[in-house]
């Protein structure tokens, strides 16, 4: 009997302790959760600097920038500052001697649809949805996902990969090992360079558009449809060029290949209204028909 009572008491104590722990954790979580609101006018510029953690930016219909976030621990602080229409958000590390999760900060940011963004992240994925405005992204290992964005997009990455879905405007992107995927873009100026990553472009070539895709190894693949109109210059020094496009050779007197070694394709599809330059050191270049 005594044992059973003892067990019951023990259970109750454990239960109480558990509840206390849970409450403490909730309070702790609330302490690390933060929220900021900034009223803005017109087209704000929002800058985010975060070493580790997720950054998610979405458009909404308020003239306000709202930041909701979570810090991994008290080893990081979040600084926010407003200067007119410019909002700056930065994660500051207080103590570096902590495990990586403790240095993490995650952000959910809501911005007016017309906004400019400048994002710097080392690791931790970045997603942007439905924002219109010039954007720059500077990442080391963070992957980037842009959807329905429009503007002058500049991407500098070391190892992170980028996927753009239904993006418009202009893209300048460079990486060392990151991949690039451009799905249904409507962009009239695309420059993408990666060393060991792959590049995949599946979208329209706009009239007077310029598309320069370059890598060292890996695959460059572009898809076309029968109504597309472009001049193409595809060169791989040590790799292959595999072409399904019915191009007419050298209609616009493009310069001859500068290398006797390279595999090349020079030609014009339909009227050659866009310019497409694909080059690789040792990778494979594919020009494939869209099914």
């Amino acid at each position: 009997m005594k044992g059973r009572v003892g067990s019951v008491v023990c259970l109750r104590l454990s239960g109480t302790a558990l509840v206390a722990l849970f409450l403490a954790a909730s309070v702790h979580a609330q302490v690390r959760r933060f929220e900021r609101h900034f009223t803005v006018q017109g087209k704000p510029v929002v800058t985010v600097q975060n070493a580790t953690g997720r950054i998610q930016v979405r458009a909404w219909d308020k003239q306000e920038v709202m930041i909701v976030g979570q810090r991994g621990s008290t080893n990081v602080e979040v600084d926010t500052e407003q200067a007119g229409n410019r909002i700056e958000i930065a994660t500051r590390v207080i103590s570096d001697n902590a495990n990586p999760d403790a240095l993490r900060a995650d952000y959910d940011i809501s911005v007016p649809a017309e906004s400019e963004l400048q994002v710097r992240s080392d690791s931790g994925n970045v997603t942007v949805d439905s924002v219109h405005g010039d954007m720059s992204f500077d990442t080391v290992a963070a992957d980037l996902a842009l959807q329905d964005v429009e503007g002058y997009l500049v991407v500098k990455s070391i190892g992170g990969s980028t996927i753009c879905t239904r993006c418009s405007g202009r893209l300048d992107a460079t990486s060392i090992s990151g991949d690039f995927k451009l799905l249904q873009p409507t962009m009239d100026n695309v420059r993408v360079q990666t060393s060991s990553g792959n590049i995949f472009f599946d979208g329209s070539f706009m009239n007077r558009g310029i598309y320069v895709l370059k890598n060292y190894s890996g695959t460059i693949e572009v898809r076309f449809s029968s109504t597309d109109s472009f001049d193409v210059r595809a060169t791989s020094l040590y790799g292959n060029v595999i072409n399904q496009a019915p191009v007419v050779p050298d209609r616009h007197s493009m310069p001859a290949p500068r290398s006797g070694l390279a595999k090349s394709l020079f030609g014009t599809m339909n009227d050659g209204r866009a310019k497409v330059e694909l080059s690789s050191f040792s990778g494979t270049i594919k020009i494939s028909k869209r099914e």
Partner: protein
Amino acid sequence: MARTRPTEIRELGEAEAIRRAQQGDAEAFERLYRLHNRRVYALCLRMLGNTAEAEDLTQEAFLQLFRKIGTFRGESAFSTWLHRLAVNVVLMRLRKKTLAATSLEEVTEPDEDVGGPRKDIGGPDLRLSGSVDRVNLERAVEQLPPGYRSVFVLHDVQGYEHNEIATIMNCSIGNSKSQLHKARMRLRELLQEFARDRAREERQAAKGSSGGSH
């Protein structure tokens, strides 16, 4: 495209220079720089009060402009676009110097309204009109909060109209006028303080030179 001889730089109109700069033409970049550099530099210098910083930020403003020139579609005046960039660049520098703590209740430019112009207008203070000179005015402008400083320099010093300032600063025309008035009121207070300090120093100097012991 044939390279433009240096003497032809001056003949390039702005629209043509923009178009050529978008293609990467070096002379076109220089033409745009020459057309606007004085105004941008003057703006930076008058807002910062420091030649080294003004040079730095002038360069930064043009760099940002030329990086983005491919996106310029002529929906606004080029100069307005450039001056907006320049003002933003300067404001960022000013804000960094006077970093404020954030709060959930933060509103746009709270500093500007706290400790602003007194409600008791034109009190029994020294008349200013004999005491406003450029040196004191520059000193006073340096003490203005960034937002007031921007509007005052843009309007009263650089001569921009309120509709231009509204576009540059992304605010309404009414806001521009209101900020300008508040900036002038604050300048008036500062100039009055300078005048009082000067008067006090003169009185003390006069006391000192007349012997002082009683």
